[in-house]
């Protein structure tokens, strides 16, 4: 930018150019001033809490007495003897492992179809998007009803197809699949992001491939998907971060019906106990803040590692123009 600018200025008008340089040099201070809200927010609401969280993770702290230092005790207990923690970690990993690729695939599938020249596209797109604006509490309540074993709409459909009704919310086998199913209902934004990416795929690439005799499936595989790979990576990382932190839906689906917010929110035999839900219980029902901080830091490390790994390995698969 700067180079371009100085080329535009005629060499004869030195004073203007010097004035321009002075202006530019002076932009560090205003720059920092403009971003100062973010700097302050970053320091106060992110950097300090993260550091503080790490400090708390080595203590025992119930908010009544001052924190007591316990060394690596919290971590040793988490990995050594805390069955609920291990259960939550496993469940969350399984949930993310299935829901993230499934959501991506379904979203890409419908985005590809919506990108075709079919009548009423805007209407169908709205239908897919709408669930995303439904508040999570409403989603939770609605789906407790839809997933009801007797007469719930989902089971009505399953029985109409000739299968037996599935006890989604009361069986340890089906509670995680129920959560995964719910995640598929929320792919609207992912579809819209894919649609935007599809608009950016140059038409002539399709034309060229078609001239070479590529059919629709090969067009998708060899043109669309490679051209869309940066968007896929973006959705993958965003989806993974969200899935590992999923809270409101399991909290409502597996809690509210069984005795309100003081109840257990892990579903039958804790088969759908999610990491965030367990963290909530430890922090805000048992007030074991040191223990909760240790759990939060473990989640932080997991998310950061996975995101960086995805970014690093993406070089092999992601095609940038």
């Amino acid at each position: 930018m700067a180079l371009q600018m100085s080329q535009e200025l005629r060499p004869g008008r030195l004073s203007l150019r010097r004035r321009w340089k002075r202006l530019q040099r002076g932009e560090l201070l205003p720059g920092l001033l403009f971003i100062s809200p973010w700097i302050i927010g970053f320091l106060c609401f992110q950097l300090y809490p993260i550091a503080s969280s790490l400090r708390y993770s080595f203590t025992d702290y119930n908010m009544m007495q001052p924190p007591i230092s316990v060394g690596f005790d919290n971590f040793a207990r988490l990995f050594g003897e805390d069955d609920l923690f291990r259960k939550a970690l496993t469940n969350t990993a399984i949930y993310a492992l299935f829901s993230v690729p499934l959501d991506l695939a379904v979203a890409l599938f419908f985005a590809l179809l919506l990108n075709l020249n079919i009548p009423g596209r805007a209407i169908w797109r709205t239908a897919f998007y709408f669930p995303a604006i439904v508040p999570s509490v409403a989603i939770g309540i609605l789906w407790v009803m839809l997933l009801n074993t007797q007469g719930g709409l989902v089971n009505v459909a399953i029985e109409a197809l000739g299968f037996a009704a599935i006890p989604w919310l009361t069986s340890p086998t089906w509670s995680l699949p129920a959560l995964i199913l719910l995640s598929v209902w929320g792919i609207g934004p992912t579809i819209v992001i894919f649609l935007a990416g599809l608009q950016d795929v140059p038409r002539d690439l399709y034309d060229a491939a078609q001239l070479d005799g590529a059919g629709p499936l090969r067009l998708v595989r060899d043109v669309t998907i490679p051209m869309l790979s940066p968007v896929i990576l973006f959705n993958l990382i965003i989806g993974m971060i969200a899935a590992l932190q999923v809270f409101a839906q399991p909290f409502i689906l597996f809690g509210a019906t069984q005795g309100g917010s003081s109840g257990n929110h892990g579903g039958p035999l804790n088969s759908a106990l999610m990491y965030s839900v367990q963290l909530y219980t430890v922090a805000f029902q048992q007030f074991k803040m040191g223990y909760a901080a240790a759990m939060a830091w473990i989640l932080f490390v997991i998310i950061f590692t996975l995101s960086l790994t995805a970014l690093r390995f993406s070089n092999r698969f992601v095609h940038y123009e």
Partner: protein
Amino acid sequence: MSNVARTNALPLRFRRDESATRNWSRLARRAGLGLAFLVVVAGAVLYAAPVYWMLITSFKSTPEVFRMPPAWWPQQLLWSNYPEALGYFPFVQYAGNTLRIALPVMIGTTVSSALVAYGFSRLRWRGRDLVFYLVLATLMIPSWVTLVPLYIFFNRIGWVDTYRPLTVPAFFGDPFSIFLLRQFFLRQPQDLIDAARVDGASHLRIFAQIIVPLAKPALAVVALFSFIAAWTDFFNPLIYLSNPDKYTLQLGLFNFFSQHFVNWPGFMAATTVVLAPIAILFFLTQKTFIEGITFTGLRG
């Protein structure tokens, strides 16, 4: 070009054959499109069905809810479910409370993110892009890792059970909004800004008189998103608010659900009422909405 010429040079017999192939492939394409259309419509119906079911259940009588075969239309529209459900929790008061959070969050997010985005796009300073990557990297920070110390801190300064922990952080810029606005600001003509600079206009004036008027659509997207996010937030009010007088709509709905014996028509009526304002807002601003998401995702 040469292809066409060659085709014309072919004997008539072959040419007819080729047009038949073309007809056939056009037919196949039509059939493919028709199939795609059917699949999309089926998918859209599946996605819309739960919302329809919510709406229709809110007018049913309790025995009708899980009746077999399912009642796609109630025998009789029970409007009385609505006043009854709203009697269970102070809807108007909670709507007011929610607004008292969502409005400051909207204003704070929009103003602060716009200022920060200007600093990241229209001012040139060393290390700018590096710091901007740091902003994006903060998206990877799970809210849990900051929540515990923040809760302890807000508790110490007496902010727990007030709206401040929910509104004040919004005034320090939101990474997604900064990203979106920066992309938008970068597309605006630099000449205009340079001209104003040479004329001696301050950065704040350029921001207020050139950038903001040009960026109204993007600012609307940020305002809309932040408002809806605050309005539908369940997690933060759940953590920070304990006095039922201060509850938001989402907390009220959750409490109603968890403390009453199963009353599906009532639950669905309450859910519909809580959803209605956002649904209306969504349908009024749909274009802005879709454009906003498009913009966030595109250059990810």
